[in-house]
C-alpha cells in the first residue's frame, strides 16, 4: 500500500508543482517504494490519457474565419472611432496654437510699435531742437516735407481749436521715412507721426494700448497712417484725429 504522506504529493509532483526539496525526497522514495512507484505510473498514465483525450474538439474553419473577419471589422471601427476624437483634439490644438501664435506675434509687434512711437515722442521732447521746421503755419510746414518724405498730406486749419502747430521734423517708423508734426495742447505736446500704411505692418487704425501714461491713437487715410502720441488723455487725441480727417 502506498504511503499516504507520499501519495498526497504525487499529483503535485507530476504536475511539476512540488518545491525542489520535496521533489527530491519523493523521487528518492519512489526508487524504494514499489507501491508508490506503481501509483505514480498509473497517475502519469491517466494524466497522459486526459491530455490526449482532452484535445478533442476542433473548430470549423468557416467559423474561425468568421470570427477573425468580425474582429478585423470591429477593430477597424474601434480605431476609426477612437482616432476621431484624438484627431479632432489635435486639430483643435493646432488651430489653437496657430491662432495664439498669430495673436501673440501681433500683440508683440503692436507693443513694439507703441514702444517705438513713445520713444521717438520722448526723444523729440527731450531734444534741444525738437522741430526742424518751426512754424505754426500749415502752408510753411507742409511744403517743408516735400522731397523729404515719399508722400504728401493735408494739414487742417487749426483756427478755433485748442491745438497749436509747433512745427515738424522727419522721422522713421519701422525703418520707413515719415513726418512727425508737433502740436501743443495747453501745456502738453503731442507728436503726430505720418507714415505710409505699408510701414505699419497692418497696425494702422487698430486701437493701440496706452503705455507709461502715454496714449497712442491711430487712424488711416488715403494710404497713410497717423499715430498721435502724447501724455494727454484719449479724448484729446480723438479730437486731434477728428481735426486731421475732416472728411471722415
Amino acid at each position: 500500500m502506498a504511503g499516504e504522506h507520499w501519495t498526497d504529493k504525487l499529483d503535485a509532483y507530476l504536475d511539476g508543482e512540488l518545491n525542489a526539496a520535496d521533489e527530491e525526497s519523493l523521487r528518492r522514495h519512489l526508487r524504494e517504494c514499489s507501491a508508490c512507484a506503481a501509483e505514480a505510473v498509473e497517475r502519469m498514465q491517466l494524466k497522459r490519457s486526459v491530455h490526449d483525450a482532452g484535445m478533442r474538439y476542433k473548430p470549423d474553419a468557416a467559423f474561425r474565419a468568421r470570427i477573425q473577419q468580425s474582429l478585423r471589422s470591429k477593430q477597424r471601427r474601434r480605431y476609426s472611432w477612437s482616432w476621431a476624437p484624438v484627431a479632432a483634439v489635435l486639430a483643435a490644438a493646432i488651430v489653437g496654437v496657430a491662432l495664439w501664435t498669430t495673436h501673440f506675434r501681433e500683440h508683440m509687434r503692436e507693443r513694439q510699435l507703441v514702444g517705438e512711437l513713445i520713444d521717438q515722442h520722448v526723444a523729440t521732447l527731450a531734444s534741444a531742437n525738437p522741430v526742424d521746421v518751426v512754424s505754426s503755419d500749415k502752408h510753411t510746414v507742409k511744403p517743408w516735407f516735400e522731397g523729404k518724405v515719399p508722400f504728401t498730406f493735408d494739414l487742417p486749419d487749426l483756427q478755433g481749436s485748442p491745438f497749436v502747430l509747433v512745427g515738424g521734423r522727419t522721422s522713421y517708423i519701422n525703418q520707413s521715412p515719415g513726418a512727425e508734426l508737433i502740436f501743443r495742447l495747453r501745456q502738453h505736446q503731442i507728436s503726430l507721426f505720418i507714415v505710409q500704411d505699408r510701414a505699419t505692418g497692418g497696425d494702422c487704425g487698430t486701437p493701440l494700448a496706452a503705455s507709461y501714461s502715454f496714449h497712442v491713437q491711430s487712424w488711416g487715410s488715403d494710404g497713410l497712417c497717423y499715430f498721435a502720441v502724447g501724455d494727454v488723455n484719449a479724448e484729446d487725441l480723438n479730437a486731434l484725429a477728428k481735426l486731421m480727417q475732416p472728411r471722415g
Partner: protein
Amino acid sequence: MKARWFSLYGVSRRPPPGESFEDLAMPLFDRLYNLAHWLTQNRDEAEDLIQETYAKALKGFSSYQPGTNFRAWMYRILRNTFLTSRAGLKSFEPLDETGEDIAAADEQTPESLLLKHLDLELVRKAIDGLPVPYREALLLCEVEEMSYQEIATTLGVPMGTVMSRLSRARRALRESVRKLQGE
C-alpha cells in the same frame, strides 16, 4: 527536473507592446474552442460561447494590462461567459468541497488501470461525466498545461481550491474509468 513532459505554450505569454488583440487572441482560438466545447458539450453552444468570449475580450482589451498573463485573461473571460450562460448556470451545481478527498485514498489496487491500455473514448466519456468545476480544472491543468497559480487566476479561486478540485477530479476520473472498463 520538472515532471512536465510536454510544453505547448509558455505559462505566461507576454505580449510585446503594440501587438493587436487579433495577434494575441487568434493563436488561442483552437484551444479556447476545445475547452468551450468540453464545457458546453455542444457545437452550436460552443460557437456561441467563443463568439461572445471574443467580442467581450475585444471590448475589454483596453483594460487588459500588457505584461500580465493574456492566456489566463482570455480563459477567464471564456469561463465567466460560460458561467453566466444558461448551460453554465445549470452545470455549476454547488459542490461539497469541504470533505476529505486526498486522504480517502483509492481502496482498489491500481493494477486495473496500469495494465490496460486506456481507450481515449473511454477517458473522454469519463471526463464528460465529471461535474463542470472538476472538468474545467482538470482540462486547464492537463490540456492547457496551466500552473496551479494560472488556474487559480483563471477560475478566480484560491490555489488550495485548485489543488482540491484537481485531486477530487482525478479520483472521480479514476473511479469512473475503472467502472467503464468493467462494463
